[in-house]
């Protein structure tokens, strides 16, 4: 059945070609008269203060970590969800336990303030 994926590849190719085509077309067609002012990063009309590439406190570090946990959980739930009606109660209880463990983790993170953005 790997042939079923061929159209995906076609659409992907068409989209990539389209994206590159748009870039090239606008690059060829549009005028370019750069001035130092135009090349400045926009900062509401003021001369930019400093560079953006400075060390930046990433507040959502915890969010990124929790995302990995819960996204994996979602993917882990998918095979069970698909087969759930055939599998019956045993796996259901196992899944309840699994989700409960993660829920406790979420609750802990919540109480520890890992979800606060301040």
């Amino acid at each position, binding site marked *: *059945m790997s*042939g*079923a*994926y*061929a*159209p*995906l590849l*076609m*659409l992907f190719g*068409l*989209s*990539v070609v*389209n*994206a590159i085509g*748009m*870039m090239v*077309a*606008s*690059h060829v067609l*549009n*005028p*370019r*008269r*750069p001035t130092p002012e135009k*090349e400045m*990063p*926009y*900062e*509401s009309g003021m001369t930019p203060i400093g*560079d*953006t590439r400075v060390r*930046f406190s*990433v*507040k*959502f570090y915890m*969010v*990124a970590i929790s*995302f990995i946990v*819960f*996204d994996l959980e*979602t*993917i882990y*739930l*998918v095979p069970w*969800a*698909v*087969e*759930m*009606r*055939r599998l*019956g*109660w045993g796996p*259901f209880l196992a899944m*309840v336990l699994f*989700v409960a463990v*993660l*829920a406790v983790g*979420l609750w802990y993170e919540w109480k520890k303030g890992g*979800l606060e*953005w301040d």
Partner: protein
Amino acid sequence: MSGLSPGVFLVTSAVKVVAVFSVLMVAVAYTTLAERRVSAWIQDRMGPNRVGPFGLLQPIADGIKNFLKEETLPGTSTKLFFVLGPMLAIVPALVTFAVVPFAAPLPTPWGTVPMIVADVPIGILYIMALSSLGVYGIVLGGWASNNKYSFLGALRASAQMVSYEVALGLSLVTVLMLTGNVTLTQVVFEQQHLGLWFVLPLSLGFILFVISAFAETNRLPFDMPEAESELVTGYHTEYSSMKFSMFFIAEYAHVITQSALMATLFLGGWDIPFWHGDDAFYFQGQWIQGFDAAGTPVLATLAWWKTLLTLGAFVLKTSLFVLVYIWVRWTLPRFRYDQVMQLGWKIMLPTALAYLMLIAGTILVLDEISVPFGLTYGLILTVVSMIGTVVFTFWLDRDRVISGASPSARWPLPQSMPSVDVPQLSETDPSQAAVGAGGN
């Protein structure tokens, strides 16, 4: 490959790919027009109505203009990633549509052609994978601009899309439990089979999906990454000409794809309600309409006019959701950023988890007492979901988790206000008058 010979399969696939791609691009163009016209209508003004009748040629004019405008490239930007950003944004937005079935299968002299670009056995997983990819273009573009607004917008976009991805995925899992497969063709068929669109038996899942989809597409009330009033359009501040346009095409393509997904997953896709004549599903080598009481498959009767009618139904449902997107934009104000994150993690995620388990338990109980998979089955699930929905909408968050702007916005002020000395402006005192007029 639905019983088509490889040659026919390739040719029909190529035709479908080109057709879907073109229709999507045109739809994107006209969604921009629709947005401006509907916005104007909501705000009681005219909107663009000069280019062509009713402004119908406006998107073409916009497109030409965007190609011909000067392109600025910030001198301090990282050139490669700056160019790569819009491309990475637009490609996932356009290819996600591939697994959405858009009409009943079309009978042709060379075999029955399923009206879906790629009926791959990974359906929903493909959507989940690609919808996460959309964030890369935004983050890369925002970071490469070397602009503080863009950088903040990109940061917000990544955190927000990552947070709502989880709730989106979990609300999809409820659909999987009822369909027992991840292909969207089967999702449509099971809704025809159940005799009830999933919006009823999985109403809370639908609500969670819609909210997450709004957040995923960065549309109001979740348009924090491009908040005009705070970040000067955020991640695409530095983009101009066609690169800017590509970010916009990506956003609208996402809107259309998410609308199509809402229609497919929860509103029966191309199914025409109260009529089983259009039902069709590829089952063990033949197109079936459903199963009779004994469980033997009933062959489907396919016709080109049925394909056309179902295509109409699909377009109608999708446009309805696109309209809802625009409507919501002018109805709800923007969230504050910490509220967005709290809604995602403290409300959506626990609700989705609890709802998932509730639906799983209900399905197993229904199977245990051997209720046949049909209307009764769906109605019982509807009742259970409705209870969940009522709890979610009317009880769960009454100012408890997501806090308002300040304590004074949450509780009434104390009756006796402490007296504050307010200096009174006196007309006779020249020094006070000078202070009052000193503003300019």
